[in-house]
């Protein structure tokens, strides 16, 4: 082989080693993916047979994977810069399916200089961006941006051991706050508080569906938001982070508060 080919061969070998080492999942992250609780027993004969076999496989595989991850740590350390330059190898799409329907609602608290002290509250649904009672034909990158913000929040809360952390939702709050102000407020009105609520509605397990009645009740609630921001009656005291509310079968949790 020519010296040039020796050099290229070395670079190829380094590349393959780097991306292979980078593709080994971190056992701590794997344990998060694996910690989801099963909502129901396996539904059919195939699942009843395969589940114990796969559970046993994973029980045997987990220590091997952890050992492989530990042994390749020096390789990852050596090639970190190379991988971070754009060759990240984390392909965990749908690895941890969410077992609830997801919603995000933003509440804007508005005060007018003409009526100081009088607060009006407007709520808008920002996820999903399309009406869910219609077929979804095109991708909404805005939805993906909100889902990625929520994922960043969940991961960072776990990694930082800070359940109060919420800065990952800053872009969501700032963007929708500005958009609401531009689209709906008069010059004398300002947004004095923004809340971001995460909503979850239970998804029935395999073999079951929501009844038409339950689905219609949920859509009736969502209809109020689909027509644009809706005005809500303000509470005597604004809710604190972690507050819970219910809307049909959607359970809302206040994840983010920003007072201005």
């Amino acid at each position: 082989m020519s010296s040039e080919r020796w050099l290229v061969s070395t670079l190829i070998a380094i590349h393959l080693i780097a991306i292979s080492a980078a593709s080994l999942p971190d056992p701590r992250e794997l344990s998060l993916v694996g910690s989801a609780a099963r909502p129901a027993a396996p539904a059919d004969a195939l699942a009843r047979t395969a589940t114990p076999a796969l559970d046993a496989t994973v029980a045997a595989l987990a220590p091997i994977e952890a050992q492989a991850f530990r042994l390749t740590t020096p390789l990852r350390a050596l090639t970190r810069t190379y991988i971070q330059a754009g060759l990240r190898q984390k392909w965990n799409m749908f690895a941890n399916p969410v077992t609830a329907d997801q919603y995000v609602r933003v509440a804007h608290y508005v005060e007018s200089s003409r009526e100081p002290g009088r607060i009006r509250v407007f709520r808008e649904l920002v996820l999903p961006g399309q009406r869910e009672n219609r077929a979804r034909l095109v991708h909404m990158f805005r939805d993906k941006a909100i889902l990625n913000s929520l994922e960043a929040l969940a991961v960072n809360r776990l990694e930082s051991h800070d359940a109060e952390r919420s800065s990952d939702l800053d872009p969501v709050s700032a963007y929708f706050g500005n958009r609401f102000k531009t689209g709906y407020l008069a010059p004398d009105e300002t947004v004095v508080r923004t809340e971001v609520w995460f909503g979850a509605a239970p998804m029935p397990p395999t073999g079951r569906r929501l009844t038409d009645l339950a689905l219609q009740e949920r859509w009736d609630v969502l209809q109020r938001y689909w027509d644009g921001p809706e005005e809500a009656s303000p509470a005597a005291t604004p809710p604190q982070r972690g507050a819970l509310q219910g809307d049909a079968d959607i359970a809302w949790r206040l994840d983010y508060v920003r007072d201005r």
Partner: protein
Amino acid sequence: MNHFLDRWERFWFASIPPHVYALLRIVFGFTGCVTLFGLRDLSTLWFLDGLVPLDVGAVGLKQYLVAHGAGHSAGLLLYLSTVASFVAMTIGFQTRLAVPVALFTSLMQVAWNYLPLSGADAAMRVFLFCLVWTDCGSVWSLDAWLAARRNPAAASVVDSGSIAPLRLIRFQVALIYFNAGLWKIFNPYWRDGSAVHYVVQSNVYRRLPHGMPLAFDQLVSVLTYATLVWELTFAFLLLLSRTRRIALIVGILIHLGMLSTIEVGPFHFVMLTSYLAFLEPEDVPRLPDRLQSLLGRRSRVPARVETALHR
């Protein structure tokens, strides 16, 4: 040792016609252009007062731009540069520059705003990284057309390329599926056969208002296990030509099935186009002829381009 080195050299440095690289350039470039069309809401996804994290990636630059009121113009400039690089890559204009620039602007996009991006963009970047190392504009490109106009005699012969970048793309595709399968098998829903149910019924992914009908649930565990097994074995199935065909056909079916039931952006398109890397490179130059004969037309392509390989 010599035997191993010979095999290594043949495996990584065999000469192939450059058409497969041109084909990959065109399909990845086109997919990138379509993705960028979907990302055209500049005020939401590119301007710094949009849905953009200011404390992640290029933080200093973003803060500087915001402080100087240039958050909109910088976002617009980055968007237009990215579009220009992918359009140039697709049509093969200044290709040697266009492909690295498309990779660079894709990386800039991650630093600028990773929020609307997904596995599709990450896959696109790793494939572009492989394409950077080869000349994918010597055929089926504006560059080649312009060169032929300048010097018609030289246009009938094109240089062959090394197979190494193609092998790297194939390895990358296999690694993507193996890694995806590894993540999945650790999740209880993938092991109990219900994962596909939760994915296709999710209100943020499903295409139809009611999701899939109840009768579909009889297939859920089969589809869940089929996906899991296929992802974990894809890399090994590629080793033999007969099983490789099965792996790719199953892959096409799985991606098309997901495409028709859930809406997750360009990921399926990027992966399906990456399958073109598994075509036999020697067959690719004849693809236009085959397409034309399939369409029932006589070829209007002049004498077949002779590669340096066959000289």
